[in-house]
């Protein structure tokens, strides 16, 4: 690794930004030749090898920018202009874990500082619209997004969904990258063995997690109209159904799923955050999605979402080969 700060990897595209990095970021799509480069939309990630001060607060917002210290992983600093990220990795840190924080908390900071709203969730492209699955940890967002991706609806992002609200009437999703963090049982269920890179860390962000690569599409480079947000709760019961969330319930849900919302408030962005939450809640259809816990019912859930958003849905009763395999595998 070079510690001279040179950005030798990339350029990549992340949430529409032009990104150069001193760390390889294999999740990201390369910057497109035909994409128009605007200086204010460029970000650099640099490495710094200097040892970290262990007494540093986990999160500080000072004159030299925002610092985030994750014990056992790295220190991160985002400069006040939010166009420069400095990473100080701890010795021997698992690169996958490092990138999970880079594409989690650090990406959320970049969003807040650049006027985007980071919603916690996973997102797929369905009939030209971005459909987000949001909810607390362990509610199956990534798993459901993966199920839809395997039915041919490209994955747009996982964990942080960057929403651009510069047009108040049409919130736009700025895709990140087509990789998803999954738990062991979901990886096994999807039979994704060879597509998965496993975390070396004993305690990953999701216990023992792996990152599955999903085919990337050109759409990743462009902002996509946000079509719906599905509010996921811990699965249970026997029904597969959706019901609209409105008014204060919609607001409360989005408020709760603002990615590291406390950071937004900590950065003094109360008004921005409030406006963003209210705009998403007021302009984007939000549905509560009820479904059973069993992974072998996942195809049914995916089909419900698919038929709700596709101009031409899959005729009911017809099961794709993949779905049949999935059912067989998961019921063993």
């Amino acid at each position, binding site marked *: 690794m070079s510690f001279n700060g040179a950005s030798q990897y990339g350029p990549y595209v992340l949430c529409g930004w032009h990104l150069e990095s001193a760390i390889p970021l294999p999740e990201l799509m390369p910057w497109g030749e035909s994409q128009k480069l605007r200086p204010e939309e460029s970000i650099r990630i640099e490495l710094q090898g200097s040892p970290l001060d262990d007494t540093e607060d986990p999160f500080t917002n000072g004159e030299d920018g925002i610092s985030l210290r994750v014990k056992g992983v790295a220190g991160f600093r985002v400069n006040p202009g939010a166009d420069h990220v400095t990473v100080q990795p701890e010795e021997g840190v698992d690169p996958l874990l490092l990138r999970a924080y880079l594409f989690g908390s650090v990406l959320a900071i970049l969003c807040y500082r650049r006027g985007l709203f980071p919603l916690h969730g996973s997102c797929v492209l369905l009939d030209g619209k971005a459909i987000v699955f949001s909810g607390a940890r362990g509610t199956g967002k990534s798993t459901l997004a993966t199920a839809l991706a395997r039915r041919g609806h490209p994955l747009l992002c996982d964990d942080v969904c960057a929403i651009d609200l510069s047009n108040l009437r049409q919130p736009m999703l700025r895709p990140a990258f087509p990789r998803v963090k999954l738990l062991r049982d979901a990886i096994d269920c999807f039979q994704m063995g060879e597509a998965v890179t496993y975390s070396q860390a004993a305690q990953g962000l999701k216990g023992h997690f792996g990152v599955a690569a999903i085919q990337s599409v050109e759409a990743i480079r462009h902002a996509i109209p946000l079509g719906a947000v599905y509010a996921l709760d811990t699965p249970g019961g026997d029904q597969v159904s959706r019901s609209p969330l409105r008014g*204060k319930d919609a*607001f409360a849900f989005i408020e709760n799923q603002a990615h590291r919302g406390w950071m937004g408030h900590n950065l003094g962005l*109360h008004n921005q955050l409030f*406006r963003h939450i*209210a*705009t998403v*809640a007021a302009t984007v259809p939000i549905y509560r999605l009820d479904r059973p816990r069993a992974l072998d019912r996942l195809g049914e859930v995916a089909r419900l979402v698919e038929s709700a958003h596709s101009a031409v849905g899959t005729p009911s009763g017809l099961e794709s080969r993949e779905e049949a395999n999935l059912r067989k595998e998961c019921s063993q």
Partner: protein
Amino acid sequence: MTENSLIARREGWIAAWVDESLIMMHAESEFYLNLTGSGSRIWELLESPRSVSDLCEALSREFDIEPDAARPEVLAFLDQLLLRKAIDVRPPAMA
């Protein structure tokens, strides 16, 4: 609080409509309020300070009830807003 008290919004609150709800937040304390129906209308009417009787008259016109019938509910609602530090109540002398 009396009929002639002057009611004014307190600083620091921001509000936005989500469907039929007027969601309000006090930015510094991150305290939320959810107003619906006549409650949200009262907040809108308070864009500039008004007396309680003025509020009751405006509401009685819009909701088609007698001002006297509206008064107890308006006063109870304003008490709630006062309790949550969303409004200031000024005596008539200061108006």
